[in-house]
């Protein structure tokens, strides 16, 4: 589920590559358009036909993944506050993808294209920018010229892709390390599935467009054209009301109502040595390294951009000064979350381990894992994001035998931030700074990154295993 955005981009690559193949053979004329696609579908089915089907199915798949992507971000409430930009810039992308798809169906010039041309024109004619009705061009063959197909092909093949690429760039502009490609296995699996679909159910044209006849029934692509039947059922004007209403609702959703802003990460220059780890790990590019301003011998200091910070605390997890072993000075790291400070975290650990539990768990605020752990009276410490937990805290728990085992939980399905689980795993397996110290037995730490649907089954099993191991150790 977390790869929906990158999967959409992968599908757009398939659309682009297959589209280039179709372009080579496509003829931009009233008769040539239909015939060139018929040639590809039937004469060159082994390549052109498959390319056409991939073009169709990958385009349709984009609509599905975009829809799921929107639903996922909405359900995780990750679109308000500082994340409004990525949310709201996604909306023009949705419109572009639909215009892309609809103009593509237009180019086939079969009965569906005829229906799409007339209905789209009727929709556009509601906008008072044309002096004459665009739909009038699709009532008689004599009104239609080959140049129209050149214009549509230009829009579909050159104009829209440029806007789409720019739109994607803008959409991920505020993200650090945006994931452009999904995992290779996922790419291979979807491409294979799509190839199978293309072979079993190849995309085909319907009867050639004939403006003297009105199609009586059509095979409609419901992914792109689901609104079109409403044009005749209601009216073009009401369809615009519906579309603009839904779009406005989506665009302004981050402020309906606005989220409750959390205090952003705070820098304490006395404890910051400008090591840059927090800036490297921040998933939102909210941390800048600027020349030192306090006269200390370090080269840089950390500055948090409050417009970008989402208060995830991953920067605290990366800070080498966030260590509970400090006893000469107060536990104030170079960067900290005011609402869940490093000192506060240590206190919570101490409180949760008074009774020396076999297993101490860490879980993210608002997660189903936290709810389950609390409901089952497990010793648990709450963190804003699992990535907020600096590895020295695990060292603290285990080397002082506050608990025999530690369970770190997280779920991609309800993860409200980015990279928390990934960075934590890399820190514990000593692939990322700050590393977990070698004296800590890694076998005493378990990571329960549960399934995408966040069912607690995996967490329960992991907890049972850890409790059994801890009991055996105690014996």
């Amino acid at each position, binding site marked *: 589920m977390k790869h929906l955005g990158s999967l959409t981009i992968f599908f757009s690559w398939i659309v682009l590559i297959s589209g280039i193949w179709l372009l080579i053979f496509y003829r931009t004329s009233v008769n040539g358009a239909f015939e060139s696609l018929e040639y590809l579908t039937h004469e060159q089915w082994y390549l052109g036909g498959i390319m056409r089907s991939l073009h169709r*199915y990958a385009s*349709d798949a984009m609509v*599905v993944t975009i829809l799921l992507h929107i639903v996922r971000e909405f359900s995780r409430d990750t679109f308000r506050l500082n994340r409004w930009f990525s949310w709201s810039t996604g909306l023009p992308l949705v419109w572009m993808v639909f215009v892309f798809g609809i103009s593509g169906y237009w180019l086939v010039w079969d009965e569906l294209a005829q229906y799409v041309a007339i209905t789209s024109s009727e929709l556009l004619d509601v906008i008072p920018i044309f*002096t004459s009705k665009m739909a009038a061009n699709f009532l*008689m063959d004599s009104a239609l010229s080959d140049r129209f197909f050149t214009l549509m092909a230009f829009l579909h093949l050159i104009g829209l892709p440029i806007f789409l690429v720019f739109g994607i760039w803008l959409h991920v502009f505020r993200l650090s390390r945006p994931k452009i490609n999904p995992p290779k296995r996922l790419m291979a699996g979807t491409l294979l*599935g799509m190839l199978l679909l293309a072979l079993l159910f190849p*995309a085909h044209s319907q009867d050639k467009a004939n403006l003297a006849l*009105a199609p009586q029934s059509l095979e409609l692509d419901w*992914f792109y054209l689901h609104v079109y039947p409403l044009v005749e059922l209601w009216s073009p004007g009401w369809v615009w009301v519906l579309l603009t209403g839904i779009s406005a609702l989506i665009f302004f959703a981050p402020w309906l109502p606005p989220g409750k802003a959390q205090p952003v990460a705070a820098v304490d220059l006395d404890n910051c040595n400008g090591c840059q780890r927090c800036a490297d790990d921040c998933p939102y590019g909210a941390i800048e390294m600027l020349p030192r301003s306090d006269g200390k011998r370090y080269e840089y200091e950390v500055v948090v951009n409050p417009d970008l910070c989402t208060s995830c605390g991953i920067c605290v997890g990366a800070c080498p000064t966030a260590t509970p072993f400090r006893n000469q000075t107060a536990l104030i790291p170079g960067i900290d979350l005011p609402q869940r400070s490093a000192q506060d975290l240590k206190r919570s650990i101490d409180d949760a381990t008074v009774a020396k539990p076999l297993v101490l768990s860490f879980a993210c605020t608002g997660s189903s894992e936290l709810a389950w752990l609390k409901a089952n009276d497990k010793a648990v410490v709450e963190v804003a994001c699992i990535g907020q937990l600096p590895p020295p805290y695990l060292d603290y728990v285990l080397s002082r035998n506050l608990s025999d085992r530690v369970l770190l939980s997280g779920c991609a399905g309800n993860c409200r931030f980015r990279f928390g689980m990934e960075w934590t795993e890399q820190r514990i397996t000593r692939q990322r700074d700050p590393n977990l110290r070698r004296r800590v037995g890694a076998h005493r730490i378990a990571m329960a990154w549960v399934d995408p649907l966040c069912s607690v089954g995996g967490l329960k099993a992991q907890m049972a295993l850890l409790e059994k191991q801890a009991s055996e150790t105690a014996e």
Partner: protein
Amino acid sequence: MKLVGQVVLYAAFFALLGVLSVRPRLRLMADDEAIVSISFSHAARRVGECRRLSQEELMALPPNMRKPEDCPRERHPLQIVLLMDDQTLYAAVLPPTGLWADGKSTAYQRIRVLAGTHDFAIRMNDSGTSGSFDFENLSTISLLPGENLVVYFDADSQQFKFHQVSQ
């Protein structure tokens, strides 16, 4: 178990793609229906006649704007009535386009009708006179199921025409 789950998810995803890209079929009209489309643009006559300016009026204007006649730009709205077997299929009063109401009026409508032989009458008033029509065309036409009959105003011959597949 995880593999089975993945296979099921992939299968569901691609089944969804395969089905919804063509099914269910969209029924646009009944088998015994045809379409009558009325579509044209026409500039109605101007609201007033041109008036020759007096010498005093001309001299009051800047030298570069001294045109001998003052012609009002505004046009009348078009009144259109399309009848089929004496029943009104389409009737409209179409205002002229443009900020100064000096552009063409545009008619566009698609209407589903029963196929078969029908008497059509199209009438238009473009002069603003009440109770009469400046243009009229009557025709008896046999419409095949699914046929698209286009009713339009031919600017060259200044008359209404019925265009259908058999012509």
